[in-house]
């Protein structure tokens, strides 16, 4: 290990791996990847189901297989990796302080830093459910790690709150391992997971999905013995008289992910209240010069293919930053209009060359609608969509000419 590197990448999940490779391939001479776990690959190591990489490799891979392809590419290059190493802080001057068993606490100086720490699960503690707090309550991601990495089943009679992808995937996984999944509840009128997961994880096994339902009470002294679920009204408040009791020994919570941004804050990186990740330019540079972000630390992705794509943008930009120094920018803002909950990147440099892909999510499920991009009153692009849903990230490609037309701000909205 050296004292200084051109580029330090924090996190060795799919984002960190792709960013490091792209930085190296675009001319960075010294790249260091720091990863807290003993192995590379991030959360993909516990996602043993298939369906990864269809966009990128045109085949359906499992999480570990997808990770393995990038790890193999990384190993072909002179990229340094330190696993078992937790980064404690990053300063705005890009001094990275980290800790591992071999070196204790140490610091390295970087010319550019790429943040790729992924996300964490919203904790069940944040939910206000009446009753006791017995054993048997798990976040779906923690349960996934138990079953797939440690080989330990959290329980046998299971209910799941939240029908996001991880909740759905775990419903099938627990069923295959012999548990009985009694029900999946979602407080919303739709599942926030992919449709294919509702079909292949619930319908295939006859697991009921209760939409517009939530858990109102947890029972049990030492271990969960039952839960009470109820239907909710349009304000998401439980309706009296609709309670149903389910005897179970395990409750999994799959209630959303949030970007893991403690380190970004230490570097002084301004965050967006909409994405809970950094505010970035199209090249994934944050508002702190030379600090880049990509993957789930920036916005919670459903598809790892998009994570890799985003990380390659960040890796290339970081290498260019090291080579050419800070670039002068002519920023325009990218904001969410009606029906859209956020747009990323939040800023586009008008001098940027080539096409730019915008990522965004809609607020509600809609059919036969249009995505419209405007600059003030003027419409600069429009595309029809058969269906859109909040659980599926949308993209929109703007051409260089369209961006040149924009003046100060562009808005992305959903119109019926």
């Amino acid at each position: 290990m050296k004292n200084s590197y051109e580029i330090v990448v924090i996190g060795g999940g799919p984002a960190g791996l792709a960013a490091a490779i792209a930085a190296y391939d675009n001319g960075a001479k010294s790249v260091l990847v720091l990863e807290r776990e003993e192995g590379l690959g991030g959360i993909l190591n516990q996602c043993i189901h298939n369906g990864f990489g269809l966009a990128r490799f045109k085949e359906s891979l499992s999480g570990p297989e997808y990770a393995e392809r990038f790890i193999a590419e990384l190993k072909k290059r002179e990229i340094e990796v330190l696993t078992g190493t937790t980064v404690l802080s990053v300063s705005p001057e890009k001094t990275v302080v980290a800790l591992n068993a071999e070196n204790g606490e140490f610091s390295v100086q970087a010319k550019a830093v790429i943040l790729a720490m992924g996300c964490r699960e919203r904790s069940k503690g944040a939910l206000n459910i009446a009753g006791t707090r017995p054993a048997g309550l798990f976040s779906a991601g923690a349960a996934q790690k138990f079953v797939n990495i440690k080989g330990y089943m959290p329980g046998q009679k299971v209910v799941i709150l939240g029908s996001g992808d991880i909740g759905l995937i775990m419903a099938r996984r627990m069923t295959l391992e012999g548990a009985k999944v009694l029900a999946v509840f979602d407080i919303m009128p739709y599942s926030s997971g992919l449709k294919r997961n509702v079909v292949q994880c619930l319908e295939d096994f006859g697991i009921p999905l209760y939409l517009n339902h939530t858990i109102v009470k947890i029972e049990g002294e030492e271990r969960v013995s039952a839960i009470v679920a109820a239907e909710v009204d349009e304000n998401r408040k439980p309706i009296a008289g609709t309670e149903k009791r389910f005897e179970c020994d395990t409750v999994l919570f799959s209630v959303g992910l949030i970007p893991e941004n403690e380190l970004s804050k230490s570097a002084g990186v301004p965050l967006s209240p909409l994405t809970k990740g950094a505010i970035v330019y199209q090249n994934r540079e944050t508002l702190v010069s030379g600090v880049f972000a990509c993957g789930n630390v920036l916005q919670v992705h459903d598809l790892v293919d998009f994570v890799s794509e985003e990380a390659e943008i960040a890796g290339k930009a970081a290498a260019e930053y090291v080579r050419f120094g800070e670039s002068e920018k002519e920023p325009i803002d990218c904001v969410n209009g009606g029906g859209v909950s956020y747009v990323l990147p939040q800023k586009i440099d008008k001098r940027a060359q080539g096409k730019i892909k915008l990522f965004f999510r809609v607020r509600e499920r809609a059919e036969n609608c249009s995505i419209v991009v405007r600059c003030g009153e003027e419409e600069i692009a429009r595309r029809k969509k058969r269906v859109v849903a909040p659980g599926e990230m949308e993209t929109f490609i703007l051409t260089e000419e369209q961006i040149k037309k924009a003046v100060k701000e562009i808005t992305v909205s959903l119109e019926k």
Partner: protein
Amino acid sequence: MEIKRLVCVECPVGCEIEVAIENGAIQSIKGNSCPRGYKYAQEEVIAPKRIVTTTVRAENGKLVPVKTSGGVLKDEIFAVMEKINAVRVKTPVLVGQTLVKEIAEGVDLVATATIG
């Protein structure tokens, strides 16, 4: 004529496909955006199949993630799971290595990670 509505599970797009069936024969398939979806719909109305992903134990206690090399008939998934759970493998295991030939008709059990 009977119309069956399916959601294609071959990729995250999740196309909604309509299959028209008359006297047990497929008349038309609509709504798929690619040939994979066409093939999926053809199989799904006659003999639905799924790739099974799970783990097996290595002799040293570690878990090895695995998948079936092709689809397993939906009705046979639990029987195949029972067979897979009885498998013990020796490490090291390489990604892509076949661990059991013909774990179900026409499909093998393959490791999906390198485990040392």
